[in-house]
C-alpha cells in the first residue's frame, strides 16, 4: 500500500472571475511545486502562462495573483509571507510584491496555495472566503473608505473576529500607479502598484478565515526548532531588529556615506540623529513592537503621535523617503506621512521619493507655483509639503494627481527624466548605489524595477553579512548579485521573510523546505529554482517590451560623483559590472536570454 506523505501545501488554487462572477478551484500539479516551489515562483509561472505580456496593466485582461509558499502558515520562523503577482502599472514589468502580517497564513489555512483574480467587476465588490465558501459581495459601502475603516467594517460584517483582511485604500481605487495592497491594517504588499490593479478590477478587499493548518510534520518541527534558535541567537535577528526595527539602519547607512539626501544629490544627511531609530525611541513615539505570523524577530514598530494618532512604522525606507530624501528632519511629520500612506494605501518609498523629485523640479524652476493649485511650496525640508502631498497623491487631488503617476512620468513631463531616481520607472530605495557597487548592479537588473529586496547587496557590502565586501570593488560582484537574487527568489517562493537571511543561509532554507515538502532538493537544486524564477520574470519583461536596454541607472548615479561623505567621488561602474553579470547569468552579451538557458532551466514558454 502506498503511504501518502504529508506536505505543507494543498496543491489547490482558487480562481475567481470578477467579470462573470464564477468561482472555481483547480488542482496544482505537484511537479510545478518542484519547479517553482510556491509563492513568487508558482505565481510567476501561472501569470506568464496565462497573461499576454502586452496587455494594459489596468485592463480586465490583467490578472492579480495572491500566492502563499509551502512554508506560509506553518510554524516555520517568519512563515507568514505571501506574494502579489501581476503586471505593474508603474513599471509595465512583472510586478511582484511581498507582505507579512497574518493574511497570507489565513489564506493558506482556508485551504488555498494561491488565489487568481481575473476580469473586472462592473461595481465595487469584495471577496469573502471561509474555507470552501467563497462569495463575491457588494462593496459600494466600502468604496472611498481608508484601509483601517475597511478592515474594521469587513471584520464586523463577516462576523469572525479573527478573520484577516487585505484591501486597497482610496489610492488603489483612484489607480495611483504606486498604490499598494494593505493587509492586517499595517502590512503592505507595497511596491510596483499592485493596489491599482486591484482597484482597476473594482475589488476593494479580500477577507478570509480558514480552519485547517498545514500538518506539523515531525522532521519539519525539529528543523524549525533549530532555525528559531539560530535566529534568536543571531545579533541582528535576535537583538538589532527586535530592539530598533529596520530603522537600526539610518545611522549605519549615513555614516557609511550612502544615505541618499535631497533626491540623491548628496550621500549624507546632517540631521540623521533627529530621525533615526534611536530618535523614535528617545522622542517617545515608540509605544510597542509587533511581529508577523510565526515570526521570532518582531521588527514591527507601533508608534503614537502626541495628537493621539497611532499606527505602525515608520520603517527605515519610509523614514528615509520622507526624511533625508526630502531633507525633512521632523519625525512627527514623517510619521504622519507614513500613517497616511497606510490608510490611503500608498507605497511609502515611491510616495516619498516622488515628492523628493518634485522638490528638485520645483527648486530648479521646472514646476511653477501656480501648478501647485494652492498647495504648499515644494521646498526641500518642508514637513508641511510631505504630509500635504501624500494626502493629495492618495486622493489624486490638485497637484497630487500629477504626482500620482510617479516620479519618472512626472519628471519626463517637464523634460527632465534624469531627475527621477528610478529604474524601469520605479523609484529607488534608501541606498545610494554609488556607495555600494554591487547594490547598483542589483538595482539596474531588478526584474520589478528599482528595488532593494531582489538581492540585498547592502548586507555583504555594508553590514558585513555573511562576509564583508569592499563597497567599491567590482571584481566578483556580479556573482554575488546572482546568488543573492536567486536566493531571494527562493525565500519569496517559500513563504518566508527576507530578514531571516541575516541569520540563515541556503542550506538552512533547503532543510526547511525539504522537511516540509519531501522534495529532497540539494542546495544546488534549490538555487536552480531561484534561477528559474529569475529568468522567467525576465522573459516576461522582455516579451512586454522591457529589455536589457532598461538594465541601467539614472545618469546622476553613473556620471555625477558623490559630492560628500566617506564615499566622496564615487560613481557606479555599470559599464564594467553589467557585462560580467550577463556572463555569470549565462546570457548573451546583449543581455538577452539564449534558448539554451531556457531549456537548461526547464522553462517551457520559449
Amino acid at each position, binding site marked *: 500500500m502506498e503511504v501518502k506523505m504529508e506536505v505543507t501545501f494543498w496543491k489547490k488554487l482558487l480562481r475567481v472571475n470578477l467579470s462573470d462572477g464564477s468561482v472555481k478551484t483547480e488542482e496544482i500539479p505537484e511537479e510545478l511545486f518542484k519547479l517553482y516551489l510556491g509563492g513568487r515562483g508558482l505565481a510567476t509561472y501561472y501569470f506568464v502562462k496565462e497573461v499576454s505580456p502586452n496587455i494594459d496593466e489596468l485592463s480586465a485582461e490583467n490578472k492579480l495573483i495572491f500566492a502563499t509558499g509551502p512554508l506560509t502558515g506553518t510554524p516555520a520562523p517568519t512563515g507568514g509571507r505571501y506574494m502579489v503577482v501581476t503586471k505593474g502599472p508603474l513599471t509595465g514589468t512583472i510586478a511582484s510584491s511581498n507582505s507579512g502580517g497574518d493574511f497570507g497564513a489565513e489564506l493558506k489555512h482556508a485551504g488555498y496555495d494561491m488565489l487568481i483574480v481575473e476580469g473586472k467587476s462592473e461595481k465595487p465588490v469584495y471577496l469573502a472566503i471561509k474555507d470552501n465558501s467563497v462569495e463575491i459581495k457588494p462593496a459600494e459601502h466600502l468604496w472611498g473608505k481608508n484601509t483601517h475603516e475597511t478592515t474594521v467594517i469587513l471584520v464586523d460584517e463577516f462576523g469572525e473576529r479573527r478573520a484577516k483582511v487585505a484591501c486597497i485604500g482610496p489610492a488603489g481605487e483612484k489607480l495611483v500607479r504606486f498604490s499598494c495592497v494593505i493587509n492586517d491594517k499595517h502590512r503592505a504588499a507595497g511596491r510596483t502598484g499592485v493596489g491599482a490593479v486591484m482597484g482597476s478590477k473594482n475589488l476593494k478587499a479580500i477577507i478570509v478565515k480558514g480552519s485547517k493548518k498545514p500538518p506539523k510534520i515531525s522532521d519539519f518541527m525539529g528543523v524549525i526548532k533549530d532555525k528559531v534558535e539560530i535566529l534568536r541567537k543571531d*545579533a*541582528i*535577528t535576535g*537583538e*538589532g*531588529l527586535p*530592539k*530598533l*526595527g*529596520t*530603522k*537600526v*539602519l539610518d*545611522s*549605519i547607512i549615513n*555614516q*557609511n*556615506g550612502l544615505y541618499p539626501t535631497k533626491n540623491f544629490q548628496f550621500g549624507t544627511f546632517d540631521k540623521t*540623529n533627529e530621525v*533615526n*531609530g*534611536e530618535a523614535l*525611541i528617545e522622542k517617545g513615539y515608540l509605544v510597542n513592537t509587533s511581529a508577523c505570523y510565526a515570526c521570532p524577530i518582531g*521588527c514591527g514598530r507601533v508608534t503614537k503621535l502626541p495628537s493621539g494618532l497611532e499606527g505602525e512604522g515608520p*520603517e*527605515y*525606507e519610509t523614514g528615509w523617503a520622507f526624511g533625508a530624501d526630502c531633507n525633512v528632519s521632523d519625525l512627527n511629520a514623517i510619521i504622519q506621512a507614513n500613517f497616511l500612506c497606510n490608510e490611503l494605501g500608498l507605497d511609502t518609498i515611491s510616495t516619498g521619493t516622488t515628492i523628493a523629485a518634485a522638490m528638485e523640479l520645483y527648486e530648479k524652476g521646472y514646476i511653477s507655483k501656480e501648478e501647485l493649485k494652492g498647495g504648499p511650496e515644494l521646498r526641500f525640508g518642508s514637513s508641511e509639503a510631505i504630509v500635504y502631498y501624500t494626502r493629495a497623491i492618495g486622493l489624486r487631488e490638485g497637484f497630487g494627481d500629477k504626482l500620482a503617476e510617479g516620479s519618472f512620468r512626472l519628471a519626463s513631463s517637464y523634460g527632465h527624466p534624469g531627475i527621477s531616481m528610478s529604474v524601469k520607472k520605479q523609484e529607488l530605495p534608501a541606498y545610494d548605489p554609488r556607495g555600494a557597487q554591487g547594490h547598483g548592479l542589483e538595482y539596474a537588473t531588478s526584474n520589478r524595477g528599482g528595488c*532593494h*529586496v531582489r538581492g*540585498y547587496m*547592502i*548586507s555583504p557590502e*555594508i*553590514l*558585513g*553579512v*555573511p*562576509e*564583508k565586501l*569592499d563597497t567599491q570593488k567590482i571584481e566578483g560582484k556580479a556573482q554575488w548579485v546572482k546568488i543573492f537574487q536567486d536566493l531571494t527568489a527562493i525565500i519569496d517562493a517559500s513563504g518566508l521573510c*527576507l*530578514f531571516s537571511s*541575516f541569520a540563515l543561509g541556503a542550506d538552512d532554507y533547503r532543510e526547511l523546505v525539504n522537511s516540509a515538502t519531501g522534495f529532497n532538493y540539494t542546495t544546488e537544486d534549490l538555487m536552480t529554482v531561484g534561477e528559474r524564477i529569475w529568468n522567467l520574470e525576465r522573459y516576461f519583461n522582455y516579451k512586454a517590451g522591457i529589455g536589457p536596454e532598461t538594465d541601467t541607472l539614472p545618469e546622476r548615479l553613473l556620471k555625477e560623483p558623490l559630492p560628500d*561623505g*566617506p*564615499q566622496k567621488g564615487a560613481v557606479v561602474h555599470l559599464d564594467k559590472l553589467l557585462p560580467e553579470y550577463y556572463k555569470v547569468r549565462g546570457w548573451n552579451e546583449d543581455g538577452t536570454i539564449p534558448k539554451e538557458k531556457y531549456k537548461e532551466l526547464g522553462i517551457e514558454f520559449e
Partner: protein
Amino acid sequence: MNKREPGGENFSPPYQYKIKFFTLFKLYFKRDFLVIESERAPLKLFELIEKGSEILGKSLKEKLISKGKLKRGAIILIKGKNVLHLKELETEIYPEDDIVFFPPGGGG
C-alpha cells in the same frame, strides 16, 4: 615630525580618542560618544576597545569581539572606512580620527 605623531604640533599627551556611538550602543550606554584618554598614540583598535570596556563594562567588548576577531556584522568605521578593509583589530587609531562603533545591525 609628522603632526599625526605623538608630540606633533596639534597633539600632545594625554591623547584623547573620541568614539561615536549609534543604534544599540547609544541606547545601552546612554551616550552619544565616549572619550578615552591615553598617554600613547596611536592605539591599536583592540586596545581602544579594551579601554572602552574598562569604562563602560565588558558588554562593549562582547558585542564587538568574538574569539579574538571582530564579530560578524559589527561595524567599526575609521574616517568612514570599515576596519575590515584596514587591519581589523590591529588597525592603528590616531587621536584626531573619526571613530564610529556599531554593534551588528541590519534591516531594509
